Structures are given as C-alpha cells and as structure tokens.
C-alpha cells in the first residue's frame, strides 16, 4: 500500500539467492505469463456475467476490455511487483530485485535505474515514431500519395502522433525528472520509490497495445481520438484507448511522486530559493500531470463506454453530444503541452546559466512564471475549438486567456536572454541545443499568436500551419531540450564523455534540418493544405518535395547521435564528477553516482547559480572524496 509498510518490516539485505540478469529475464517471462492468465480470467469472468444476463459470452471489444483489466495487474505483479510490494499486503516479507545488469529489466526501486529505463525507452520510441514521420513525408512527395493507401496513411499518421505525444509527455519528465530531481535536491531517492517503479512498468503494456493495434487495422483518428469517428471505427481504436488510459495512470502516479519528492526530500539547507530551476519546472509540471490527466482518462473512458457498453455520451442519434468530448479532452490536452514544455524550459535555463558562467537572470520571476503557466493552463482549452460549434460567447474569453499565456512564457524567454547577455558562452553541444531551443521556441511562440486569434485561426484551423506551429513548440521547444539534457547529463549518467565532434554534427544537421523542414511548411498551411489528409492539390507539390527532402536530412541527423551514444558508452573518455564545473548538487557526487547518491547527506549553503558573484557561498561542497577518484 505505501512505503511505510516496507520500513515497518525492515529491509532484508543480502540473504536472498544470487540474482542475475537471467533471473530478471525469468521474471519478465513470468509477467507475460501472468498477463495471459489475467486476460483469460477477465474474458471468462465477463463471459459468465454476460451469460447470466442473457447475452452471448464473447463480445470482441468488451471481452478485450475485461481481459485487459486483469492482464495489467497480472503483468505488474508477475514481473516483480508481487515480490517487491504485493507480498506485504498479505502479511509476507518482500523479496528483492537483481543487482547486476538485470536491474534495468526488473522492478527496481532506484530512481537512477528508473530514469535510465525511461530514457532508453523513450529515445527508442522517439526514433521509432520518427521513422513513421519519414514514411509520412515519403507519401507526401506526390499529391496522390506515393506509397500508402489512404487507410494506411491514417494509421501511420496516428501512430506517429500518438507515440510522439507520449515521448513528449514522458521523455523529459520521466527520464531526467527521475534521474536528476532527487540528485538536485540532495535526496537519496524519490519519495515513493516503489510507486516510481510501478509508473515505469506501466509503460511496456502501452507500447504493446499500440503495436497490437496495427494488425487490428490501426486507428485513424490521430492522437486526439474525436468522436463520432472514434466510437464507430475498428478495434484498433479500443487498443489506443486502453493504452492511453494506462499511460495516463503512469503520468498521474509520477506527478504525485515528483510533488512529494520536491516538497519533502530536499537536503538540509535546500530552501525554496536555493532549488535549481529544473526542479522547480518539474514541480509545476507535476501538478498538471496529477490533476488534468484524469480528464484525458475520463474522455477516453467515455469513448470506450460508448463502444463497449452502449452508452450515448457522443452518439448524437441517441441524444449524445460529440462536442462534450472536445471539452473534456482539451481540458487535459492543452495543459499537457505545458507538461511537455515546462521541464524543457527548466533544462535550457539550467544549461544556459551553467555554460555561460552567469547567474540565472530573474530566477524568482522564472519560478513565478512557471506557476503563472500552471494557473492559466486550465482556462485556455477551448482555443482548440474555435471552429467547432461551441457557444459563440466562449470565443473571446478563450482568445484573451490564451494570449495571456504569452506573459509568463515571455518572462521565461527574457530570462533566457538575460542569462546569456554578456556571458562567456561555452559552446559545447548541450549549450548549442539550448540556444537552438530558444531560437525555435521564439518562432513557435510567434506563430502561435495567429492560432490564438480568432480571425486568423478560422482560416488556419486544421492546416499545415498548425502542424508547423506545434512542431516548432514541441520539437523545437521540447525535443531540442531533451537532447540538450541528454548531452548535458550524459557524463553524469554513464560516467563517460560523449564525442564532441559527433555531437556538433548532430546539432547542426538537426537544427538546420528542422528549421528548413518546418519554415517552408507554414506556406502550404496558409494555402489551405489540410493536415492529416493523405492527398493534396498538385500546385503544392514543389513545396512539399522541399519539406520532405529536408525532413529526410532531419531524420538522418539522428544517425550520428545514435552512434555517439552507443560508442561513447564503451569507448568514451572517462568523465570527471563535474565536467561542466557546475554548482548544482547532481555534479557534487561521482559520475555515475553511487546507489545512495551522496556518501553523506549534503548540506546546502548557497544559491545554485551564483557564478562570479563576489562572496557567494558554495551551493554545496563536493560530496566525493579524493581517495575515491573523481
């Protein structure tokens, strides 16, 4: 139930069998087996209930839902949650996960292991969904579609969007949030380590469901899953619903964990005004994940009920209201973009300050801006619905609240500029990505104004202008920060330095490829080229060929990245504990940190960014001794 129980039973250490990675593989197989048992049980139970109430025992979608409801705990308990957690609910002692490489494949509580699990999973998913983007651009080389049928195109487009949204939600927050947050706060783990492990192990079923949807015909609604299409299309849609509800559960539990860690796990002396800005951004982000994600789940539960149980939430012929879906859905899904971008802002502000050797400009205003965004995020959702048939009296209020968001966002942008102003910029790869992010986000923000304003939005709604805009904010604003964070913390996480030259290749290819893909894409949007459609008018072919070729360069930019990451892992130069000579706490321990993070609990005595401030106290003294090496 909670971690308190674990402590009451005490931790039994070292008296178990000798664990190996193969043991973890066995656990994995057990998880799959129990998932299968759970699925069969769920299907059987539903069949019994349906028979009693006079229905046919097997009903495809209802049976899948019932099976999945029991398959999910089957997977979790089978793969290690029973041994590590569930046993004590029944009064037994818990068993422990392996300690060798197998820990990366098991129900491990260590926040650093979980951070790496998230990072590896989501970088893989990013590259996977990127391949789908390449297919989309290949298709759009020709106005009539180059390779795919229209139905296939819809599935490919939906898969790209859905997986990339998942990467945007958990790619930064899940990996660096888990790995870096406790380190920056001087804690030795998250507030709820087992809940944390559970949050991660809910992710593999999400991926399996999304992949399983493809042979079932995929889903053609994009990631937004609007009814009435989503209540009437193939079974792939149901897989999507179950996957995203599971993913939402993982988000909510992570958000809860981040908030508790942030409030309660800070080291001695880590006052509110000494907390690094990345941790602050995670704190603000976590509230959105905790509260608003529920509404995404509600909207998809409603769709699922319409499909499975015959309710008429969105079935207009029985008095349903399809517009209700859009309200509930966007009530989460607009705040979700701040789940993407708040931690990204945190990362780039960190890097800009450390690598220009200057205090973070307007630190307190930035923190205030995070909460301004958090507050406003809940009252802007209907700007996605300007061309829907909602009440016209709602239009102007949502226009105004949407424009208001540019005030806190602008504060953050100005803080970034103020930080590098007259700084001594150290143009290493993370710094390049951070500067690139600032540039991209400016374009993303400015083009957003046209979509927030009613007269222009009515023209631009559902065109490639929108596609270009949100790629500038999500890829330009967040994915660039993801890569900035990967290069910045790579030495801390792996204990090795990445290859600077390959990193520079990656940055310039990605930055130029990205901008030359999406700047031209605004044009067909203004010309009225519809997003999500497999075909377009022939007069737009030339510009689409340009966009596609540039997109292939953007795709190719990840080849040096992948090679760099893998080769440096084995052959990279050994990293020092603090290669960036940064002040924050994660750099004051060894690379990689020991299991307990800090040999002794750190004592924080000064601000995190007081570079070059005369007489400033250190943030915290290094917690590694010379005898232990770096």
């Amino acid at each position, binding site marked *: 139930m909670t971690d308190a129980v674990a*402590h009451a039973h005490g931790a039994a250490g070292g008296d178990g069998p000798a664990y190996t990675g193969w043991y973890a593989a066995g656990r994995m197989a057990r998880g799959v087996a129990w998932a299968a048992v759970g699925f069969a049980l769920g299907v059987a139970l539903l069949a019994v209930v349906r028979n009693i109430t006079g229905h046919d025992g097997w009903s495809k979608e209802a049976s899948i839902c019932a099976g999945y409801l029991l398959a999910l705990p089957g997977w979790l308990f089978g793969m290690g949650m029973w041994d590590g957690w569930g046993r004590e609910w029944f009064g037994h002692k818990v068993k*422990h996960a392996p300690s060798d490489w197998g820990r990366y494949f098991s129900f491990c509580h260590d926040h650093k292991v979980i951070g790496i699990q998230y990072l590896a999973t989501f970088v893989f998913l990013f590259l996977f969904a990127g391949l789908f983007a390449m297919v989309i651009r290949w298709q759009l080389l020709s106005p009539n579609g180059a390779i795919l049928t229209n139905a296939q195109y819809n599935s490919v487009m939906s898969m790209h969007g859905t997986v990339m949204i998942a990467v945007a939600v958990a790619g930064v927050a899940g990996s660096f949030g888990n790995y870096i947050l406790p380190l920056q706060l001087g804690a030795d783990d998250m507030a709820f380590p087992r809940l944390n492990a559970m949050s991660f192990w809910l992710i593999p079923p999400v991926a399996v469901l999304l992949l399983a949807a493809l042979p079932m015909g995929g889903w053609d609604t994009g990631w937004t899953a609007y009814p009435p299409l989503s209540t009437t299309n193939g079974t792939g849609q149901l897989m999507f619903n179950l996957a995203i509800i599971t993913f939402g559960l993982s988000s909510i539990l992570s958000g809860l964990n981040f908030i508790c860690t942030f409030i309660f796990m800070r080291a001695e002396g880590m006052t509110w005004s000494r907390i690094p800005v990345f941790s602050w951004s995670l704190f603000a982000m976590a509230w959105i994940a905790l509260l608003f994600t529920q509404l995404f789940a509600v909207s998809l539960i409603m769709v699922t009920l319409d499909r499975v149980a015959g309710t*008429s*939430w969105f079935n207009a012929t*029985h008095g349903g209201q399809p517009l209700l879906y859009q309200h509930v859905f966007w009530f989460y899904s607009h705040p979700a973009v701040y789940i993407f971008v708040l931690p990204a802002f945190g990362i780039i502000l960190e890097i800009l300050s450390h690598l220009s050797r200057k205090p973070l400009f307007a630190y307190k205003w930035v923190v205030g801006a995070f909460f301004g965004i958090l507050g406003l995020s809940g009252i802007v959702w209907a700007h996605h619905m300007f061309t829907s048939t909602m009440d016209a009296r709602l239009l102007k209020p949502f226009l105004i609240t949407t424009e208001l968001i540019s005030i806190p966002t602008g504060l953050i942008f100005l803080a970034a500029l103020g930080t590098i102003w007259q700084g001594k910029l150290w143009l290493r790869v993370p710094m390049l990505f951070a500067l690139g992010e600032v540039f991209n986000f400016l374009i993303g923000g400015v083009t957003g104004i046209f979509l927030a304003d009613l007269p222009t939005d009515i023209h631009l709604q559902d065109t490639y202008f929108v596609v270009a805009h949100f790629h500038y904010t999500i890829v330009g604003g967040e994915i660039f920060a993801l890569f900035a964070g990967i290069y910045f913390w790579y030495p801390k996480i792996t204990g090795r330095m990445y290859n600077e030259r390959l990193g520079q290749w990656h940055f310039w290819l990605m930055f130029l490829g990205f901008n030359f893909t999406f700047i031209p894409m605004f044009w067909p949007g203004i010309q009225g080229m519809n997003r999500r459609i497999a075909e377009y008018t022939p007069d737009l072919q030339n510009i689409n060929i340009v966009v596609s070729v540039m997109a292939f360069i953007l795709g190719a930019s990840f080849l040096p990245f992948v090679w760099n990451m893998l080769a440096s892992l084995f052959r990279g130069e050994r990293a020092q504990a603090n290669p960036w000579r940064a002040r924050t706490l994660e750099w004051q321990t060894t690379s990689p940190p020991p299991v307990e993070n800090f040999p002794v609990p750190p004592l924080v005595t000064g601000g995190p960014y007081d570079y070059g401030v005369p007489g400033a*106290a250190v943030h915290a003294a290094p917690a590694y001794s010379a005898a232990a090496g770096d």
Partner: protein
Amino acid sequence: MVTTGNEAALRTAPPRQAPAYGEAVHAGHQMPKSKRAHINRVALWMFFFSESFMFGGLLAGKFYLAGAGHDAHLDQFLGLLITSILLLSSVTAYQAETAIKHGKTGQCVAWLFLTIVFGAIFAVGVGFEWATAHFSVHEPFGTAFFAMTGIHAAHVISGVFMLVLIYRLVRRGRFGPDHYWPVEATVKYWHFVDVVWVFFYPALYLTTW
C-alpha cells in the same frame, strides 16, 4: 574554498554500506517515522485531489449531457437506503481507525467487519438498481447514471477489497497505536469514496429543473 562543514563530515563519517539494488534504498531509512507518515498522508490527499478531477469531470459531463433533471422512474427508496448505509459505513470505518489508534485490536476487527458488510450491501444495492432500472443505457440520463454509478461502484468494490486485506492484517495483530498507517489510509480512502457519493447522489437522484 568556502568551508561548509561537509568536508569535516566526510573525513569522520564511516563509509556507508551500499545496500543491494532493489531494496528500499531511499531516505525513508534515515527519515524519522513521523516524517514518513506525514509524506504518506499528504500523498494520499493529493491522490484524492487528483481523483476528484475525474469525478468532477463525470459530474460536469452529466449536467452537459442530461441537464439538471433526473429520471422519474428512479427507485428513490432504494437510493436513500443505500446512501444511508454508505454514510453509516463511514462512521464504522472511523470507529475502526480510532480503535486501532488506541490499541484495541478486537474492536477494530469488529468495526472493520461492519464496514465491509455495509460496503458490500451498497455494491449489491447498486447492482439491484441496475437490474431493475426502467431507463436504458442508450439515453442521455441513463448514460450518465450507469457510467457514474458504475465508476463509483468500482471504487467501492476496490475499497471493500482493501478493507478485507486490512481486516486480515489487523486480525493477525500487525498494527497498533504506533503503526496504523495502512488502516488509516484505507479508512481515508473509504471516506473519500463516500464523499464522492455525497455529490453523485443528489446529482443523479434529487436535482430537478
């Protein structure tokens, strides 16, 4: 270099034994029990806060879809009866928590048993309401009614399941005045499920336009 006192601690503190991976290797070990309990309590309230967004969404969805009215065929007596029983179960749950805080295991077992029985009666009552309802799931009010009572009943059933687990552990004497958090957490969850019904019941049974 500015002295922080940390360096001295480094020199004098014996190297801490690195615990095996997978153990609960976190500050919980050094943290006083009272702080651990405080974190758990805050986290539980935040979980309720989060869940209330879900129930709030359903409630808003009901008014959007079906307006403020309710179906004339609802069995008002049954609704009032199961609502009363659910509210009563909150009282017995509270009594169970108080008993274990005072170390009275036997009383706690008895109150928990009553709570489980009341919870089960409520779930059966909802099932009976479903079986005898005169309105269909295909119409707007029926949609809201079945979805909201169904999702609420799922919470009730999960609460009963947790109460049964706790009941077993209390009977084995696992909890006492200095360690009763799992009992407290389960009872708080039960109260939360009750409070949700306090909003759902008038929205589904009583309001009219």
